[in-house]
């Protein structure tokens, strides 16, 4: 029997919706069980430029007032990984957490219920000087997240609702395991397509576009 014990804590400022459910219920969708760090931690008074740009872009994409969003930004983690990157986040008007790992990636779901139950994640993204990583926002009912890349376990930290783990960019397959307080867990499989693979189709598309452009140019040049 599914009985919701608590629901809906969305305030005008976009607080993340919180639901509590019985242990035998299906897990709350996305991060709808709540992301308390977005309320508990103090707002950041001065945003770094990349963070301000991310907030402006992502807030507009989610029908959220950018200036109001800037006043709600929290720095959830600092000095992460090889690039010593920080994670900033705010709740959009629907209550979904939008976050940025500075200079690497941002994510802004439309709703708190989007994505995998318990974790709104993004994975990959290595570039010269930086390995790939898993970064995401976990809901309050998540106690840990495990990451396995090509069968090898990768350390993942969870603090202030942010998960982070770094792995070599040559990885081909990732398995993310989301462990909840009630003992249940969810798994996500990701085909990583490491650097150097999976680009043949892009090269083909690029070549085809160039050939089409040349054909059009020749057609225009003919009398």
């Amino acid at each position, binding site marked *: 029997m599914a009985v919701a014990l608590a629901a809906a804590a969305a305030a005008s400022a976009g607080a993340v919706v919180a639901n509590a459910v019985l242990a035998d219920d299906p897990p709350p969708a*996305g991060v709808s069980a709540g992301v308390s760090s977005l309320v508990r931690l103090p707002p950041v008074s001065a945003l770094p430029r*990349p963070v301000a740009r*991310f907030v402006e*872009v*992502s807030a507009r*994409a*989610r029908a959220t007032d950018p200036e109001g969003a800037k006043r709600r930004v929290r720095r959830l983690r600092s000095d992460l990984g090889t690039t010593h990157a920080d994670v900033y986040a705010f709740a959009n008007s629907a209550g979904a957490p939008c976050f*940025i*790992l*500075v*200079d*690497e*990636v*941002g*994510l*802004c*779901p*439309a709703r708190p219920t*989007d*994505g*995998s139950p318990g974790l*709104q*994640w*993004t*994975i*990959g*993204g*290595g*570039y010269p000087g930086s390995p*790939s990583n898993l970064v995401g926002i976990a809901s309050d009912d998540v106690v840990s997240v495990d990451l396995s890349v090509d069968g090898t376990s990768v350390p993942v930290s969870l603090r202030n609702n942010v998960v982070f783990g770094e792995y070599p*960019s040559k990885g081909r397959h990732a398995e993310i395991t989301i462990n909840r307080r009630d003992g249940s867990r969810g798994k*996500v*499989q*990701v*085909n*990583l*397509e*490491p*650097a*150097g693979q*999976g*680009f043949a*189709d*892009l*090269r083909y*598309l*690029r070549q085809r576009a160039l050939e089409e452009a040349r054909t059009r140019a020749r057609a225009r040049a003919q009398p």
Partner: protein
Amino acid sequence: MSRAPLRVLLVLFVATILAATAAAPTAWAWSQTYVSNVNWGPASSKASIYGQITFNYVSFTHPYGGLPQMGTTLCDSTFTSCYAWRWSNTGLITDERNISYGAAACKANPGNGYVVWVNYCATGNG
């Protein structure tokens, strides 16, 4: 008519262009929405035009069920060297990496079991 005034005008014109370039680099900012409003099956992808890139945005939804994943990357101008794909099953994804001259790309993960609706993939600088 003497050529001297023409030379002066030419020098002034070039100086003006150089001054504008130095003072307002954002004048060269560009952007391109290279995918919009399309259904993509597994492994579908597209790349942008070339340029200096400081962002790549990938917006998508999953109206046909499941949690299909989308990815973003940046490549050099020959597509022989690309950054690792960055994946997620919820968007908007904002790729915050940059490349001095190359193209951006977005892609539906080859492992997807469902079609994904791509709202847009957009890149540029500035």
